[in-house]
């Protein structure tokens, strides 16, 4: 779960990471009220889960009430690379002396958290990493030992940051690590980490990702989940407990097992088609789950054909066939289906389908054959 900037900053505050004072606002009048409370100048920042807000005009400085109103008006409701701005964060403006970059990332390869620090902040870090790889300093942290003072100190010295802020920047890395662990984050990123003219150290932005599997122990964060940015099919799938990812093609896909579904997407693409979605019906899928999944897939109007690719292990092919038959009864899909059933009870499953004689349902013996067929039908 990716948090919005202001949600991340609220977590930061909880763990002692210094952030500028700010207020959340969902309307122009709330934004103006927030600005008046904070005192000018303030910065009004669009809260959307996408980078490049500044360039898109989503971050504006306001020096008085009139400007605050004008900018809030402009930003609320604007579209930033496909995301509509529904809320803003109104923040006391900071005086910028230097901009650093700090992050704690989940390094899957080393299987340890990794702390990162660069004195080249406030810009695209991947660009920095390419042009000046030495500027980005990295250090792994043994998760059983935890973040030690020396981790922060060493990164601060190695990154070559200003001598007077070695200590507070090292300390902030420790606090960001606390956020990382205590909040079950998989990413905590601050860009820029600001050094003000008064040489105070402040997190001016916050990018935090929380592990979905750990939300059960973070009720406050789980409550933040805001589906407004989600695709309608993805929301529908989530409500039904299905593992679904929306893509931009026209071939609807259902399979059992994440690896097999990914593979099915690939095979469809190799056959010249464009997958409309990823949908893993899971192990031991029952007929109702299959019916429900069909509803989600075909609710996407772009879908012009659907592929079922099932290799039955725990999942029984006859259950899948029953689910499909039920789906046809209840919702009468108007697109063609290609079905490949293999594995446990495949014979029974195919027999059920043959018997039901559903309109526009084609069975195929192999995964490759099924992919070719569905691509042909989707044209």
């Amino acid at each position, binding site marked *: 779960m990716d948090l919005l900037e202001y949600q991340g900053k609220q977590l930061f505050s909880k763990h002692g990471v210094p952030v500028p004072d700010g207020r959340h606002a969902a309307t122009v009048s709330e934004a103006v009220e927030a600005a008046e409370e904070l005192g000018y100048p303030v910065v009004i920042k669009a809260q959307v889960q996408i980078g490049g807000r500044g360039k898109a005009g989503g971050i504006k400085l306001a020096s008085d009430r009139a400007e605050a109103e004008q900018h809030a008006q402009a930003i609320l409701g604007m579209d930033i690379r496909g995301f509509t701005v529904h809320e803003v964060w109104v923040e006391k403006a900071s005086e910028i002396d230097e901009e650093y970059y700090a992050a704690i990332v*989940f390094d899957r390869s080393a299987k340890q958290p990794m702390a990162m620090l660069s004195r080249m902040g406030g810009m695209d870090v991947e660009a920095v990493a390419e042009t000046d790889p030495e500027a980005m300093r990295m250090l792994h942290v043994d998760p059983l030992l935890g973040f030690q003072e020396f981790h922060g100190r060493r990164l601060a010295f190695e990154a070559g940051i200003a001598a007077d802020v070695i200590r507070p920047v090292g300390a902030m890395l420790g606090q960001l690590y606390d956020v990382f662990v205590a909040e079950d984050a998989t990413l905590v990123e601050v860009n820029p980490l600001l050094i003000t003219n008064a040489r105070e150290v402040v997190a001016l932005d916050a990018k935090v990702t929380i592990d979905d*599997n750990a939300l059960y122990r973070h009720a406050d964060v789980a409550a933040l989940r805001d589906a407004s940015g989600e695709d309608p099919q993805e929301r529908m799938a989530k409500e039904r407990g299905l593992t679904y*990812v929306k893509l931009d093609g026209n071939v609807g896909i259902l399979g059992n*097992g*994440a*690896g097999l579904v*990914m593979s099915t997407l*690939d*095979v469809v693409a190799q056959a010249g088609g464009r997958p409309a979605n990823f949908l893993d019906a899971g*192990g031991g899928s029952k007929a109702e789950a299959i019916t429900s999944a069909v509803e989600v897939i075909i609710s996407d109007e772009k879908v012009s054909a659907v592929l079922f690719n099932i290799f039955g292990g725990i999942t029984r092919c006859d259950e899948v066939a029953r689910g499909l038959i039920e789906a046809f009864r209840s919702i009468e899909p108007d697109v063609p289906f290609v079905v490949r059933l293999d594995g446990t009870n495949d014979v029974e499953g195919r027999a059920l389908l043959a018997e039901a004689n559903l309109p526009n349902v084609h069975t195929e013996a192999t995964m490759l054959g099924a992919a070719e067929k569905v691509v042909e039908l989707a044209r």
Partner: protein
Amino acid sequence: MAILVDTDTRLVVSGVTGREGTFHSLRNRDYGTQVVAGVTPAKGGQDVDGIPVFDTFQAAVSETGANTAMIFVPPRFAADSILEAENAGIALIIAITEGIPAHDELRVYNHLKRGGSRLIGPNCPGILSPGKANVGIIPAQFFKEGNVGLVSRSGTLTYQIGNELAQGGFGNSSIVGIGGDPVPGSSFIDVIELFEADPETELIVMCGEIGGSAEEEAAEFIATSVSKPVVAYIAGFTAPPGKTMGHAGAIVSGTQGTAAAKAEALEAKGVRVGRNPTQVAEIAVEILGARV
């Protein structure tokens, strides 16, 4: 021979009294696996169709000599159960549970790597050594004894490949699901190393997917330390960046962890990579045919 589980396996199942736990424990026992105990706190003294249940792993180990654990408890109890199994001296822990928090996995991994126990999974289908033992949820009916070692981050995809191999007349030494989570207890390398040392295994098939860099690391390892032929498959060429594709670990982050990069890394080290599961099976059959 086989790797990890065989006729010496004495299995204790954590969560044996749950619906799924009971179903698969009995299925594993029916296959011939020695399922000697179950663990469910406060149900000690009961039994599940003759499998004695204990309150703690310690009691299960001292009473039954269990040497392998299968973890079948819900995600919020799984890390604790794995750590309890390790503390009780279990040498091999196979965690089926899906949905364990990543930080729990991190702590468990970094603790276990210091000593004692080997962890397979979590979020994996388990291990099948055809004809010897089945621990987990792999549908054993599609597999027979043979000389192909299969290691995979994905369950169903493996069954698909294994089934096609079987149709080509070949069987498996062992089939190991290492799981689809970001911090698997054992990596491709760990398992490939075992297959390399296993005299029965003549060919290794590894089945990877997007996310992380385990396949790239395996490619390095294969180049330097594996004498047996390896065939690979990678799923997820069409996965868009930033989207979790079912498995918690299957996600392309920025430009990291793409299927193309993995396939390229493997091919650069001389590993043949099939374009689809069927082709993987075909290449394997071709290599094995040549070796017969």
